[in-house]
């Protein structure tokens, strides 16, 4: 039952906020987010409450089946990521006056959808919960977004609907062959592996902004209000990667191997091509959006290693990096929003010397910048190093380099690219002389700092002691 509560708490809070008269939306959302963390921890560390099944249709057999301990701990890690980022997202950003209902309802709905997708053990609800989270994303970008919000929201909808439909086709072909929607019964298929694998790579890939279906992501994150960027880039986007690992690799391993060369080329495009695009960005939010697209390439690399050599720890590497990236990108968007709030601009060439007046902002941004470059001691490093090792697992110096090894070697250059754009952004924004926009900036208040501190502490803990996350894999 506890697992059901994980979804019901945000949904009930949404209902209370939407229909309630003169309720304090922020307090209810905060309460729900904190309560959900408590429930998640209770569900993870106690046994016996962790699964829930309700038959919703007998023919075809569809169950609302939830279990956080499936998939050898992947779900547990992503669940933790979801509840933590949800709390930070509720605390972040500045809600426009009079729009509290929409603002907090959307954040909670996205959270409920993401959690539901990560803990469902039925293909139907696995897919359905993810879609549930897309509608508030669309609405929030369209209504409260910045810049060219309507165009961006439309673009996101078109891309994600396309990805979802392709994905649905793939999932249906799987369900038809296996004769059930039960995800615990997934086994390698006997027919059409190649076709299904392609559908899954395109479908899941579009949702994770795999090259060349990535161009929705950066504008969307730049335009969306902070909580939505944080939740989507940090949590919801991991759905596609999660799906490739727990569904794709299980049912169509040979099909994935068939498309491995294609996947390697695309993921290198993600890392190198999008990396170069990122260097070229003039606005901080677009830069962060593109960097998040770029970092997806590393996780795809872990999946490629898994498909190629069945690496024993590629899954753990991928999930650890998903966790680390989720926390760090959420923190980045949270701080970028504060920078815009303080200075009124995110144009890199209009800012400078911000560290003088807002030292804690500079420190926190520096921290997350280092994390996303992959500095040792912070969570992303642990994930990235494991990904690179997984690419070489089983390889002996006497062997020739295989495609995955070559891809890994090229991918490592991505770290350099990250360093270039991150450090340059930091220098442009925080160092040097103050400019007109940053002269009168006040330091961050406690409320402003809180979400970033929560996320930063987790980056440090996981970075110094990665076992805190890896322990969930059995």
């Amino acid at each position, binding site marked *: 039952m506890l697992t059901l509560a994980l979804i019901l708490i945000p949904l009930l809070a949404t209902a209370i906020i*939407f*229909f309630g008269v003169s309720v304090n939306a922020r307090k209810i959302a905060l309460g729900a987010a904190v309560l959900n963390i408590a429930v998640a921890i209770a569900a993870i560390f106690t046994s016996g409450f962790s699964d829930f099944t*309700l*038959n*919703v*249709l*007998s*023919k*075809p057999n*569809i169950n*609302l089946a939830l279990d956080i301990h499936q998939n050898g701990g992947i779900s547990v890690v992503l669940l933790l990521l979801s509840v933590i980022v949800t709390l930070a997202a509720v605390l972040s950003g500045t809600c426009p006056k009079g729009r509290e*209902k929409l603002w907090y309802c959307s954040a909670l709905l996205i959270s409920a959808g993401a959690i539901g997708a990560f803990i469902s053990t039925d293909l*139907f609800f696995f*897919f*359905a*919960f993810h*879609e*549930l989270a897309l*509608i508030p994303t*669309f*609405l929030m970008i*369209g*209504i409260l977004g910045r810049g060219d919000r*309507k165009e961006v929201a*439309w673009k996101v*909808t*078109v891309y994600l*609907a*396309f990805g979802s*439909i*392709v994905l*649905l*086709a793939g999932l*249906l*072909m799987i*369900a*038809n062959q296996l004769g059930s929607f039960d995800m615990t019964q997934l086994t390698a298929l006997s027919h059409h592996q190649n076709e299904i694998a392609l559908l899954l790579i395109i479908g899941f890939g579009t949702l994770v902004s795999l090259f060349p279906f990535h161009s929705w992501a950066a504008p969307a994150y730049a335009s969306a209000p902070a909580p939505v960027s944080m939740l989507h880039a940090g949590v919801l986007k991991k759905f596609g990667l999660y799906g490739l690992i727990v569904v794709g690799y299980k049912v169509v391993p040979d099909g994935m191997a068939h498309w491995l060369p294609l996947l390697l080329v695309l993921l290198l495009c993600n890392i190198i091509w999008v990396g170069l695009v990122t260097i070229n960005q003039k606005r901080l939010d677009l830069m962060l959006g593109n960097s998040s697209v770029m970092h997806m390439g590393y996780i795809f690399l872990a999946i490629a290693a898994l498909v190629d050599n069945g690496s024993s720890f590629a899954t753990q590497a991928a999930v650890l990096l998903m966790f680390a990236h989720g926390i760090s990108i959420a923190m980045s968007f949270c701080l970028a929003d504060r920078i815009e709030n303080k200075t009124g601009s995110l144009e890199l060439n209009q800012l400078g010397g911000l560290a003088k007046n807002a030292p804690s902002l500079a420190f926190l941004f520096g921290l997350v910048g280092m994390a996303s470059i992959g500095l040792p001691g912070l969570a992303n490093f642990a994930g990235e190093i494991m990904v690179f090792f997984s690419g070489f697992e089983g390889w002996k110096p006497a062997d020739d380099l295989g495609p995955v090894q070559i891809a890994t070697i090229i991918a490592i250059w991505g770290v350099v690219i990250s360093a270039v754009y991150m450090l340059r952004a930091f220098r442009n924004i925080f160092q040097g002389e103050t400019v007109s926009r940053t002269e009168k900036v006040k330091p961050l208040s406690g409320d402003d700092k809180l979400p970033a501190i929560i996320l930063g502490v987790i980056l440090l803990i996981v970075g110094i002691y990665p076992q805190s996350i890896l322990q969930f894999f059995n």
Partner: protein
Amino acid sequence: MNTYLLEFYVVGLGVIMLLWEAFASPKNKSKLALIGAGGLTIILALLIFGKDSADLNHVPDWLSRFYSTGGHSLFFKGFALVSTILVLLMSYDFRSILNKYTSNNNSSDNTGEFYTLPVFACAGLMWMASATDLVSIFVALELVTITFYVMVAFMRRNVGSLEAGVKYLILGALSTGFLVYGIAWMYGATGTTDLAKISNLELTSSYSLLFGLSLIIISLGFKVGAVPMQLWIPDVYQGAPTPITAFLSIASKAAGFGVAIVILQPFLASDAVSGNVLMILVIMAAATLLYGNLSALAQTNFKRLLAYSSIAHAGFLLLALSVSDFSTVKFYLATYLIMNFAGFFILNLVRVQDGSDEIDAFDGLGMRNPNLALALTITMAAMAGVPLTAGFLGKLFVFQSIVGTLPWIVVVIAFVAAAAGFYYYFKVIRAIYWHKPANEKPLTVPSISKYAIIILTAAIIVVGVYPKAIECLIGG
């Protein structure tokens, strides 16, 4: 309770309403709608609670050749009753527009029949659900169609309504001609009009049989709005009074599919002709999907959008029909009823208060009435087929039954059609939230519409998450 008596109760109710309207001359004729809805609710209760009685399936001898009972007919009878009740309730809230276009002084003097005719149409729909003989099918179908001719053109001072009436009359008569001609050929080829007998025959694939069958399929295509008989739909739906549009698009289409199941079942099951029937249906379905969805993309009028969307839905239903997945057809129709009525109730409300059917009229609804905007958002999401709403399940089951059984090109068309749906339904959602309202006046929702919309929207979610809720209706 005997099932066959239900239709007589319905006709009786209609006659009483008609006489009362004529002789008691009530001042406010729109009250008739409430009386009709109340009466039909009692009959619906009889249907539901009488389902387990012992003499349920008893049919007297004089009727038994033409009349069947059982799960199929009960489902479609219930469907007809529920939709007629909702149509009557919607008509009540539509009364101000109706009065405006039927009399000089905005009085309800000339509107009495408008609230009575749906009851007769309902009886026809219920007979259609039970008809097992081509002749009884024809008679029941005509009762429905002729009633609709009057209802569509009822707003006689409105050019649109008259135009719709004429178009529907001419094309409807044409399709009737097809049906009768088809039945004649069918009789010539098989020697009987009794479908039970036809299903026992060893069918051979003769030209006369196939010709008759294709004529019948064409005329059924008119009923359900499938290509190539879809041309009437946009204009008639747009011109007809909104409650009648809802009636046409939901009850009439569902009855068409109910009859199509009964007529086509023997042919889809026979080895000799099933290949031909399948091919015709699949081609029709693919064309319908493409036509409905692609034409809907460019619409700026919400009523027309719903018309094209109803063509699009007919395409999905035809796909399920062609692979003989009749339970999916029923499931899809049940979800279609819920979400379409929700859409029409909201359209009806906006039409009455703002006097416009255009999508522009929904601009800024999110500001004017957030709860109504939420309901419309859920409805549009359901029609587009967003998961965890009722609309997704219907599409999912259709996809599930066609993936692997029909040629891949048809499957691709179906997926493209579903994707296109997102575009035009979300256009409405965009208007609700992104555009500035033309007038800031908050929309007030009359209580009947309010409760109907709340119940229907809640049903969209409940069925979407817990489809077992209507599974029992389809199995029963």
